[in-house]
């Protein structure tokens, strides 16, 4: 008993008090800023492994970006990744960052269904489905509930059964072999329900783009409520994105 208390005491305070204002350590690659500097655009577009960069004006699609950082290393005067981790969006187009843009990303309130804040603002239970995810987004989604990020304090939790869930969080590029289980799981969730895509692989299939082993038909059938970019997602991106989605409006 005494030893237990000692161990508890030695842990100090681990949780992040204000999850919306936390800072991330080190050289985090979050929301990029693209300057108007003139550079060799073709070279820039060519070097990106996932075709996330396009021109006229230069844009980066965070839904495709693997956050490898190579563009910023090669053209530091053109592209800079900031430590702003609030990069979730509820409209696919919002994920495209244009040259000269430097504004905080917020969800488009017009696209959020009324019942979302009505039913889920105090409690949101999610079922996660990994459909070809490499395990990294899964590790970070688990971390969302750990003693540091502690998303449970906002009533957001992952549950075991789709029947207990209010929505689905998909990771991975959606393999052919997971297409059917994913559909069955989604169908088992009662209405109203959300769909959240966590990570670049889920949003655009990322580096797996074009693989014949994928089947992404599921995504064309439904409206996606939240896109959370990252490779993998940072827990702060996920938690803040979800809080923004379900907050009382």
């Amino acid at each position: 008993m005494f030893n237990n208390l000692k161990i508890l005491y030695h842990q100090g305070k681990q949780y992040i008090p204000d999850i919306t204002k936390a800072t991330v350590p080190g050289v985090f690659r979050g929301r990029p800023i693209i300057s108007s500097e003139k550079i060799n655009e073709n070279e820039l577009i060519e070097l990106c492994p996932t075709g996330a960069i396009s021109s006229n004006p230069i844009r980066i699609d965070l839904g495709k970006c693997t956050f490898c950082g190579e563009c910023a290393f090669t053209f530091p005067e053109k592209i800079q990744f900031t430590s702003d981790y609030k990069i979730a969006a509820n409209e696919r187009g919002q994920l495209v960052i244009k040259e000269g843009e430097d504004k905080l990303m917020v969800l488009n309130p017009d696209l959020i269904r009324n019942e979302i804040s009505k039913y889920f603002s105090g409690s949101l239970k999610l079922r996660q489905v990994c459909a070809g995810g490499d395990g990294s987004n899964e590790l970070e989604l688990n971390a969302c509930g750990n003693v540091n990020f502690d998303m449970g304090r906002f009533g957001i939790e992952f549950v075991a059964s789709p029947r207990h869930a209010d929505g689905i969080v998909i990771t991975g590029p959606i393999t052919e072999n997971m297409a059917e289980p994913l559909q069955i799981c989604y169908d088992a969730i009662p209405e109203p329900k959300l769909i959240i895509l966590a990570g670049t692989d889920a949003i655009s299939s990322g580096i797996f783009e074009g693989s014949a082993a994928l089947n992404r038909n599921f995504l064309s059938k439904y409206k996606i409520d939240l896109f959370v970019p990252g490779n993998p997602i940072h827990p702060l991106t996920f938690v803040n994105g979800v809080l923004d989605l379900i907050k009382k409006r």
Partner: protein
Amino acid sequence: MNHTIVKNNQCIPVSSIPVLDYERFLEHNISFLREEHYHCVNFYGIQHKEKIKLICCIANDNDATINVSSSIVESKQTLPSFSQHHFSFHIFEREIHENFEINYTDHPWLKPLRFSFNRPNNNNTIANYPFLKIDSEELHEVGVGPIHAGIIEPGHFRFICNGEQILHLEIQLGFQHRGIETLFLEKKKLLQRTALAESIAGDTVTGHTTAFVNLWESLCNYKTEPDLQFARTIALELERIAIHTGDLSAMCTDVAYQLGSSVYGRLRTPVINYFQVWCGNRLAKGLIRPGKNNFSFNKILGDSLIKIFDEYEPDFNEISSMTFTLPTVLARFEKTGVLTPEHAASIGAVGMIARTSGINRDIRTSHPHDFYSTLHHQAIIKRHGDVYSRAQIRKEEILQSIKYIRELTKTIPEENKNRKPLNPPMPDSFAISLVEGWRGEICHCAITDEQGELMHYKVKDPSLHNWLGLALAVRNNEISDFPICNKSFDLSYCGHDL
């Protein structure tokens, strides 16, 4: 000559690999495995005009060499199996069977492996996997997955139980198949291929990426500088510490030891946050690159890492001395999920799972790469093969890795600011790379064509061997002990499915 001898990360002309007739190929390779210091690190088929070329790589753990030989067979041919002589070949032959419809007269378990998208037989689908059936009034079947209760990857487990007791477990995988090996050929840019290597298994980013870059550099005849090798070694040991710590947390969760779960869980955080400080990503994506390093390791980084360990170690030792003596934990860990040394040897277990069943198998000792030859690594060996051994080895390997990093960071190699660019890969070549990731032995092999373009790429994750170990270890255990057994193995689904 029946085989050619290569070292880890050596590139040789494809033509130097002897082509044997199948009988000799079989006899020659299985003859190695009669001695314990040999094991098969890779055995696979590639399309060779209308035929199939089989390539077998047998490692000699005593003298750091790998014996490579090959044989050309007809597709759809029926052959005697290697597995009949040494069971550890079973998984490779299942893959060869699935990919090329080669049949074996005497393979004990010739079932689909991962339902790869380019399998010739499309009648086999993941929904109609041929599970072992039992016809009995007393026994019942339990099916779990592919989607599991937690946030983990998909796979299907089919148990045959007598009451609460597991008699048999069959593990069906393939749900995660993304066609990685084909993508390695289709995506032509080096950065794309590196990103692919980083995504083979997201919990083994440094392991698989190191295997890829070491392989690529040897294909390009590039002399890897010490500062690059140094950073890779540090990253590999850090990944080991991070994942082992997280696993100890998860194992505590599975036996309802809340304090252990929280403390180990929070101890993982500074380690993965360190990766973010170093390279901007908590799981080290972006850190390891062929022929360069965007985030060179320096004295400041070294000092801050040591500071993290100075804080980590006392808290880690404190919670460990509690966890490893607590009767409620021990009652669940000890003698649970035993993988016997005989079973481990027969399935060709690798990594931690081999070492907890008394087998001294560790690439860091037997085929050292990067900085491991300077570390003179001594593998930690456990003998009981139970959940307790698998918890203990994690605890001890964490402390060992910290010791290595403390030692390594005393002399940090200077960053080379004038690095030579990579040459293109050499034509008509074969290269092999072995890395001891936190889970065990990773093996990548590549073959180039006459233009030096990648013609074939082969990835082997340690999980390929070890999944069967889990199935064997849970026999005769209570089904309620399955989660803790599964967690203690912590095998990769995507690494297996590719």
